[in-house]
């Protein structure tokens, strides 16, 4: 499937403008920080990075470079395009590799005893060492203020117990332990969802409905039903992803979550994509049960927000904002000589 034109993908920009940006500004204000430290897997046009710079959440240093931005790109072929758009001005090198492979790296017998700069004629061994080196490098960048977890693959394409991407998400929570809180954006395409994932979402939903009366009440009040299949698919998915993926990974690693928003938007082919914006706060002991229930109730009552492809394209505010970012990016590239 060909990539969308990110510079005119207004539907996605609704999520940035109405979801990411206010949540990030609120986070920054609350944390009393001047700028954010940001991890992202941007598309080649890097709209998110330039949006944060334009909005003053990221700032360049004296030499014109943008510090505190760490980019990961898994497709080597796309790296030159990202260089073309982003490099400079980011200060750090791009982390090249599949995020889930990097984050779930575990030493084997060879990598455990071999220095990182050792040479092996064996390609596989070289690749393992390279992966370790990349993991070590990425690990040192943690913790971040904002993590934009938007990989090419889907957290729902196979059951989470076997899904490396899910394990990578858990690892993110583990590596973030050096900070008290952070903002997490998770993007999941709602196509090619594995049956096993649907079954898990359904069974987790049913568990919650029977276990927590507040969730049961909220569902009845909001959707008039507690039957999983009777609930609107977008809400069902929003609830499922929050409960079975984000909250599950967070709670396992000792974090409380507050969903600031969940958004469903369309691409030009009519496929839906879900994005959640979550404030994660490190629990002092076991993650709080009540905050967990409150979060799910909030999702049931208020989320998700839906942005259709055609409506977004006629939203003047969104178009103007995206155009402003694109213009700012091009100006920035000119200033840095690219």
């Amino acid at each position, binding site marked *: 499937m060909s990539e969308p034109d990110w510079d005119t993908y207004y539907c996605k920009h609704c999520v940035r403008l109405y979801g990411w940006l206010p949540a990030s500004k609120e986070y920054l204000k609350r944390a009393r920080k001047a700028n954010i430290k940001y991890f992202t897997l941007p598309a080649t046009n890097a709209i998110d990075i330039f949006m944060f710079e334009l909005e003053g959440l990221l700032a360049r240093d*004296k030499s014109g470079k943008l510090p505190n931005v760490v980019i990961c790109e898994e497709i080597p072929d796309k790296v030159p395009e990202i260089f073309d758009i982003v*490099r*400079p001005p980011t200060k750090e090198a791009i982390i090249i590799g599949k995020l889930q492979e990097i984050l779930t790296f575990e030493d084997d017998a060879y990598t455990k005893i071999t220095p990182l700069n050792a*040479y092996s004629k064996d*390609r596989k061994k070289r690749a393992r060492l*390279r992966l370790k080196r990349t993991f070590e490098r990425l690990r040192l960048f943690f913790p971040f203020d904002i993590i934009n977890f938007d990989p090419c693959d889907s957290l729902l394409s196979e059951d989470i117990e076997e899904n490396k991407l899910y394990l990578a998400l858990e690892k993110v929570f583990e590596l973030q332990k050096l900070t008290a809180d952070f903002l997490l954006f998770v993007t999941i395409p709602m196509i090619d969802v594995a049956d096993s994932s649907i079954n898990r979402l359904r069974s987790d939903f049913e568990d919650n409905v029977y276990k927590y009366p507040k969730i049961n009440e909220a569902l009845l009040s909001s959707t008039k039903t507690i039957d999983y299949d009777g609930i609107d698919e977008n809400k069902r998915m929003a609830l499922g992803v929050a409960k079975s993926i984000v909250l599950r990974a967070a709670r396992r690693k000792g974090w409380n979550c507050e969903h600031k928003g969940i958004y469903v938007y369309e691409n030009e082919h009519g496929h839906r994509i879900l994005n959640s914006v979550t404030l994660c706060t490190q629990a002092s002991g076991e993650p709080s049960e009540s905050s967990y229930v409150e979060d799910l109730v909030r999702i049931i009552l208020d989320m998700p927000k839906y942005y259709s492809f055609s409506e977004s394209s006629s939203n003047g505010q969104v178009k103007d904002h995206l155009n402003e970012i694109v213009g700012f990016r091009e100006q920035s590239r000119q200033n840095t*000589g690219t």
Partner: protein
Amino acid sequence: MNTTRERGNGSIRVADVTIAQLSHGLYRSTATAFKELVNNAYDADATVVRIDTNYPEFDFISCVDNGSGMPLKEFLRHFRDEGIGSCIKRKGAKDTTAVYNRPIIGRLGIGMLAVGQLCHSFEIESHYKDDDGVDKAFHANIVLLEDTIPDIEHVIRNEELEKRQIDVGLWAYEEILYDESKKGFRVYSSDVRNTYLDEMKNSVDEKTQEMLSFNLPTLHSEFYDQVGKSIRECKPYLETIWELCILCPLPYYGEIHEYPMKLSLFKEEDITDEAEQALTMIRDRQSSLGNWDFCVVFDGIDLRRYIQFPTKPQANPRLFYISFDDVVADEPLRFSGYIFGQTQAVTPLELNGVQIRLRAVGIGGYDSTFLKYYRQIETIRSRWVSGEIFVDYGLERALNIDRDSFNEHDEHFKRLQLELHKKLDTVFNKLDSIARAQQEEKRNVKDESLKGSMQGIVAKQSQGKFKLLQHDLGSSGPVVSVDERKGEIVLNTASRPLRKKKADMILRHVILAYHISGKMAKTEEEQYDIFYRLIKDILRELA
């Protein structure tokens, strides 16, 4: 009658194992390896070639151009049918590129191997139009098999190996969908060699990272203003950028009246007819490069040949022109160039010497031996000169396979060397005379100033009784003559008993001090005091 012994004849062949050694690494430096990729892009009529290193980690290399791409059949000729080096770029009468009419650089088709010097394996992708104008694309993986290439020492000692066919790598390709946004050719690799990675990474410490600007003028001012003498002080990463700037077929940076010659620093009378010829040649070449519409972007930096002479103001800049157009060894040889000279060392050191540019590409850096010009090579004046010679026709046979050096016994090379050396005779003679005149002028100024100082000293120590004069009293005349009546002490400038200018001058002044102290003192002790004070003052001036 002689007895017939065994005879034979035949063609000379090169063993596969010898050729295979080339894939081990052919290029002198990182920049020369990158230069080969740039040359390929240039030959493919690309307007932009972007090289990225994933600075400051250097764990990824990519080279992307927007040229005509490599057709699959060309790839297969190289990798499946005929082998690396079976270039068709100049087959037939083709000598310039189809779109921009650029002189074609490549000859053998081994440039792609250059990337193998920096990484163990790499991927290529080509999006192009085939002969029928149909959009096509393919992607290929190439893995270099270093362990199958025998060590040359091993080959020498093992007869069997010489006959063996050598696989230098593995390749696989697949056709993919054409993508207009990717039109051209791209090479990329994450499997970079640790030697390259470590060298680059170690050369960019935190301080450099803070300072490094991805803006060419700022970056170059780092090279020229902050580097004491040599680009090497910048360490390998920046050195690579600098080297690429001077090797690639790129225009000079900036306005033509500022680069490469800053004309405002030349005196009007020094812009001779010859200098004008050189300037016209430079302008024409700059204009051709502009027409060829080509740029190289390295880690976001739009590279240019950032050369500016004179390197300092008041350096007595002079510009000379060299040209040649004749048949040598049955083949035409045509070149022109400029030689710049000043009376101070050229900085950075790497610009000192002469660079030969063949088909707009720098062959190696600046040769500070001036192609082995023995007359001046060890003198300080050889550091005052920099030049570029642009070869438009011929000399290619002399080019070694690395495209970075020449076979010095090639006829064309010898002729170029001869012409250059003849021109250098003129250049160095001129610089010599400028330097001598300058030295003479400096000396005169110094002598005048010294004369004034000595008069002051004599007046002071003799309490105005004597006036110091300097006259030629003949070589047999007294070193110092005293006329008490007139109150004059005359130093005989023709007196050279020691036959060494400085020593004779000191001797004259010692005798002067002796006479004054003798005339002024009443006691021996007083004479010593006056003598001592005089000598002290005199030597302070002379030192």
